[in-house]
């Protein structure tokens, strides 16, 4: 386990080498947060509170929503898919496979290092700016606990999804299209930008069949205290169900993919 942590440390340190990038990505995050908050304040200031299926929504709640969802997008974004593609195409995966380690765990810990870096140098600055400029709602202790719990589950769902798509490069030439596709699906069906309570009915129905809302929308609706405790349990069950399903798909693909893998030269 210790040496897996070393992978996380390596990523952290190598990212630290490019300071300009760190600065620019903070700017990038803050800029998009400003856009979101401005849109919601323009909309809500003209109508006051908005009644939805999940209760009244005020401006402060939407601002909190925007800050949280920016935060989640920071810790969630990863390049697992492209890394898979790169390793399989160049044949480097052969080298990784003969090392005494589990390839997926290695990816997971690399991701972890990446995340720790982004939490320190992107999430914390952006959240601080968000709180100072706009303010944020604080949930009850219980909701905060379930928020983090469902958030972690959501991150696991996202990680397995990227693994599944990345592994498709065993069969496909390029998978960057799939990477974009996943992001586009997330953009709309996860509630990343628009909370599901503003959706037309048909989109709510579609998103109920997809795992994406469990990554963004469900944790945030718990944070904003829009769901009852029964529904919290429901969300947890759905998340665990999706994790199991995706995990099984992932295992099957991995077994088949490794068998199919042919590395030339290297």
């Amino acid at each position: 386990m210790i040496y897996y942590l070393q992978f996380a440390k390596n990523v952290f340190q190598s990212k630290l080498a490019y300071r300009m990038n760190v600065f620019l990505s903070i700017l990038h995050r803050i800029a998009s947060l400003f856009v979101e908050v401005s849109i919601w304040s323009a909309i809500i200031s003209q109508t006051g509170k908005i009644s939805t299926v999940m209760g009244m929504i005020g401006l402060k709640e939407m601002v909190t929503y925007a800050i949280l969802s920016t935060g989640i997008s920071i810790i969630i974004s990863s390049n697992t898919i492209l890394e898979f593609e790169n390793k399989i195409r160049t044949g480097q995966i052969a080298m990784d496979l003969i090392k005494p380690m589990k390839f997926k765990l290695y990816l997971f810990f690399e991701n972890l290092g990446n995340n720790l870096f982004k939490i320190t140098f992107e999430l914390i600055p952006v959240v601080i700016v968000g709180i100072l400029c706009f303010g944020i709602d604080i949930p009850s202790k219980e909701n905060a606990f379930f928020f983090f719990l469902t958030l972690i589950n959501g991150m696991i769902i996202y990680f397995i999804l990227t693994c599944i798509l990345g592994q498709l490069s065993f069969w496909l030439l390029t998978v960057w299209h799939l990477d974009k596709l996943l992001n586009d699906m997330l953009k709309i069906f996860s509630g990343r930008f628009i909370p599901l309570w503003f959706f037309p009915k048909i989109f709510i129905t579609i998103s109920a069949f997809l795992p994406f809302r469990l990554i963004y929308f469900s944790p945030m609706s718990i944070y904003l205290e829009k769901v009852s405790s029964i529904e919290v349990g429901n969300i947890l069950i759905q998340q665990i169900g999706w994790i199991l399903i995706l995990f099984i798909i992932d295992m099957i693909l991995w077994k088949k993919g490794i068998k199919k893998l042919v590395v030339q030269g290297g």
Partner: protein
Amino acid sequence: MKSLTLYLKFISIYLKCRLEYRVAFILDILMPIFSYSINYLTIWIILNRFSSIRGWDFNQIMFLYTINLFSYGLAGIIFYTPMRSLDSLVKKGDFDMFLTKPMNPFLHLINRQFEHIFIGHLILSSIVFLICLGNLNITWSVLKVIWLIFVLFGATLIQGAFMIITGSLSFFYTNSTSVASSILNSLRGFIDYPISIYNKGLKILLTFILPYGFISFYPSKYFLNKSNDEIFHYLFQYATPIVGILLFILSYKVWLLGVNNYKSTGS
């Protein structure tokens, strides 16, 4: 003129090479179409629920967004990939090649690579534009059509100028282009919606410092007959082509500064 014929030649070679992989080529073009359709869809969801943002209804915001997308696509075809590739060219020292050829390095770099992915942007924005036109009550005259072409030209120059400036950053900071271009994307996000929804500071920023407002917001105000409730002068509606030319000249100066700063790694 000579470089134009050369450019056409380069494009035809590029296309021949890409069309070897037909499926990949078509997927490359379909991808942005899908991606930006999703963006249009998010705008639709919001406007479907709230009917207007600060007096701008769905079709008007689509018009605004479409000018942005079209000019971005046009600029992207020409400038995006050359400027993105600059990063590795500088890092590996391959930029030497451009300095030793009997041609302006800027033109050479741009000639050499063309980006077919952005054809998708152009297709989608043209379709949406036609749909929009049916729903908007704009009385078109010859003058207005000519003005629209000028606006698109100016807007494309603004978008291109930003691509050139961020690309030239790699002469000063290694590994900066990918992040810089994601910043550009988020800045472009600012003008997905009318900039009248932002506070004063952001309006000043988007008008004078990063003149993104001139790409779509100010010209749309003219076409959509929006009253001038802004803090800025109404003449700004007509400024897009001038801002485009000035900004493009500025970006070329930044490029020249970068080239002068270039020291080959010598490998």
